[in-house]
């Protein structure tokens, strides 16, 4: 069998490795225009901050590809011919396939801000290896920066810029940081933490216009308050979207929506053509809204599923209970279950440890626990998941919370010293 995978991110490479486990003889080719080797996108910030080299970002030794006979091709796929089962590369050559996998990931959102079309330089995203190149090049000539977008990539970019001594303003459109995931109380002290690190955080402020200098380099942004913020670097981190722009230009292309439309087995409308990871828009029969999961863990899971489905498994993708984790400067964050998709004003038990950037929030529906948002200390999400599955009551969970703690030895967060309070979930986003 001849398998061609477009994209060498975590979905594509996981898919290739699972496929190799299934079939020792299949020909497996991974095409990427971004980098020669799979790298960890999530670690871009550590390379930017000189904590790792570029090479360290690669999760596997390069010899692994040779040992597993995964052929890597550095090129962009520019077209596909579904009837002939070939894809065309930027170099002009064609690759035949029996099975084709789109694992092309996501790209940053860009909105038609006033002045955006004048920019020749100075605007950065923080998603790809090329973005890291841009960031590093521009940092050398930047004293001030503005980062737009109150999410995870935004705060990472802000931390990196600050590390390099660039004075940074963080524009957050919403009334508090990351309302998609955090309650107001948590967001407020994460904001305080950012300010403590010297970030100029602006809540409920939006960019209305981008200014450029004579050479077309970003020179400042105007906000909705009328203020002009001078800057030589503008970071746009306003979310990401499935990366389908290039595919739209294909003569034959799988059916596209916001992403590449697939059924529960992650197969597109073209037989033998699959999509997985950030680019996949999964349609379940009988469900109105499709599922698009733009996170690392899902990409890995979907890649593994497609790796088996290439061989006729027809396994359906069912996302497990949601979990995620992150880090805001030094504040670690773990979430499990329903927090952001809990109903408005859902009852929660909330505990903030005074003087520390540390809190726990247990979301419930009056009878049973449905989600957790934990900041500033470490939690074993496997235990928290189990309690949700076991339909434990919020009071029971609060009493047993200690057994889900995952802090370092000697460093267990002192929960017992502080009481929890009942507090409805504050959801201030549209």
């Amino acid at each position, binding site marked *: 069998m001849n398998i061609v995978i477009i994209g060498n991110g975590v979905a594509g490479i996981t898919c290739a490795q699972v496929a190799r486990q299934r079939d020792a003889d299949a020909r497996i080719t991974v095409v990427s225009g971004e980098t020669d080797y799979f790298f*960890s996108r*999530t*670690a871009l910030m*550590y390379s*930017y901050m*000189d*904590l*790792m*080299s570029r090479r360290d*970002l*690669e*999760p596997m*030794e390069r010899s692994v590809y040779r040992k597993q006979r995964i052929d890597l091709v550095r090129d962009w796929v520019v077209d596909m011919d579904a009837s002939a089962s070939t894809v065309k590369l930027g170099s002009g050559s064609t690759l035949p396939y029996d099975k084709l996998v789109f694992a092309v990931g996501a790209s940053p959102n860009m909105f038609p801000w006033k002045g955006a079309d004048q920019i020749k330089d100075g605007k950065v995203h923080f998603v790809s290896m090329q973005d890291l190149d841009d960031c590093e090049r521009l*940092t050398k000539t930047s004293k001030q920066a503005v980062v737009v977008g109150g999410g995870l990539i935004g705060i990472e970019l802000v931390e990196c810029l600050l*590390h*390099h*001594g660039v004075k940074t303003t963080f524009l957050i459109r919403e009334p508090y940081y990351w309302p*998609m995931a955090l309650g107001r109380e948590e967001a407020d002290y994460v904001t305080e933490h950012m300010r403590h690190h010297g970030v100029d955080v602006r809540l409920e402020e939006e960019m209305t216009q981008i200014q450029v200098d004579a050479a077309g380099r970003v020179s400042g942004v105007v906000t909705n308050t009328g203020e002009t913020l001078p800057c030589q670097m503008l970071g746009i981190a306003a979310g*990401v979207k499935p990366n389908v722009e290039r595919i739209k230009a294909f003569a034959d292309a799988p059916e596209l929506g916001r992403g590449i439309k697939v059924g529960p087995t992650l197969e597109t409308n073209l037989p033998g053509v699959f999509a997985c990871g950030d680019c996949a828009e999964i349609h*379940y029969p009988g*469900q109105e809204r499709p*599922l*698009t*999961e*733009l996170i*690392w*863990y*899902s990409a890995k*899971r979907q890649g593994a599923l497609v790796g088996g489905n290439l061989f006729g498994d027809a396994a359906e993708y069912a*996302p*497990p*209970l*949601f*979990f995620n*984790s*992150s*880090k805001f400067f*030094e504040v*670690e964050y773990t979430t499990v*279950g*329903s927090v952001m*998709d*809990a109903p408005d004003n859902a009852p929660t038990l909330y505990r903030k440890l005074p003087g520390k950037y540390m809190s726990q929030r247990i979301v419930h529906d009056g009878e049973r626990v*449905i989600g957790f948002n934990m900041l500033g200390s*470490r*939690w074993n*999400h*496997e*235990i928290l998941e*189990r309690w*949700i*599955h*076991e*339909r434990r009551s919020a009071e029971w969970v609060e009493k047993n919370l200690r*057994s*889900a703690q995952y802090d*370092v*030895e*000697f*460093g267990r967060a002192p929960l017992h010293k502080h009481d929890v309070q009942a507090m409805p979930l504050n959801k201030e986003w549209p």
Partner: protein
Amino acid sequence: MRRQNAAGWLLHDVKNRGVTAWLLFAALTIFYILIYGYRGGAMEPIANVFHGLMGTTSSSPDQWAKTLIFFLPENLVDRWTLYGFLYSVAVCTGGGWVIWKYRHNRYQIVRTSVVIFVQVAFGFSIPHILKFFQQPDYYFSYFWPLKFEYFQPSYIASHPGWLVFYTFAGSLVLVPVMTVLFGKRWYCSWVCGCGGLANTFGEPWRHLSTKSSWSWKFEKVSIHTVLALSVVTTAMWIVPSLPGVNLVEGTTAYAVITWVRSAYALVVVTVLCGMAGTALYPIGGTRVWCRFACPMAAMIGLMQKFGRYRIRVKRDMCISCGMCSKYCEMGIDVRAYAQANFSFTRASCVGCGLCAEVCPRGVLRLENVSRKDPQELNMTALVDESWKGQHSSVGSRT
């Protein structure tokens, strides 16, 4: 990307095998040659090259020591006092900095404090206090096979009973019991002087250890070879002084035994442990000796495989960023385990805890597995999928 100013250049250069790192390596090497180049020692001819340039002699370091450590009685002070003093200063200052750097991590604070205490008390003060009271200068923090002269029959015969008891109880009972209960970390990164210096003064270079799978293969061969040699050499010390064994100078047996003993002392004890282990910090990372050659690490590493210690990995939470592997001083590719959801015990792991510290997702945890572990999952919960549809995760997620 390094920081743009001069300090940024220097920091990057010295931490990443730049010019300044090589200069530091050269300086440390010369320092060790001078320290180990004592009269009659194997290093003396090389040391004399440098003494020739400086117009000093191979006994000068003892004089320097008496000048610099003027606050101690002269008869107690020689070059080894100076070295021990500098070593302790390096552990204290480096340790202070490490405690500040990881002040949010109680494991690092406790561990670093203990390692500083052990160096200052057992590695420096107590041996000198014993010497002051004309007692044998015993190092309580070293066990077999690092100190096998303590096991010689002649040594046993000439030392007080409580010291002999400590020697045997320490090596034969304390070491295995502690290792099985807590892993080799109780020694390698809580007690040992080599590990103490590596985790304090050596902190800026910990990431330089090579992570290649080739280096892992090499390490397994080299470290166990040294362990085997240390067993042989111990026998060479004990056998000749056993009752009934009469070794005569001039015989082949005598020549072989003395050659093995001095070869081990020169290559393993002096060059690998004493000199290379530390001088290589800026080039090869902090644990070159511990990882490739220390017989103690080899022995308790094997015990660790059967003990309770492990690094626990939280299922599916790893993002493969690689900070854990990068900052593992033993060159363990921690990421390979973490991204495969595999809790593990590696013989070489010294339990410094830095992988868990730098992990941005809190995936890793050092622990001693107990049978009553409250965190073990029960399968009933995992197969119960009644939560499905109750609060569905269908929708967009970023």
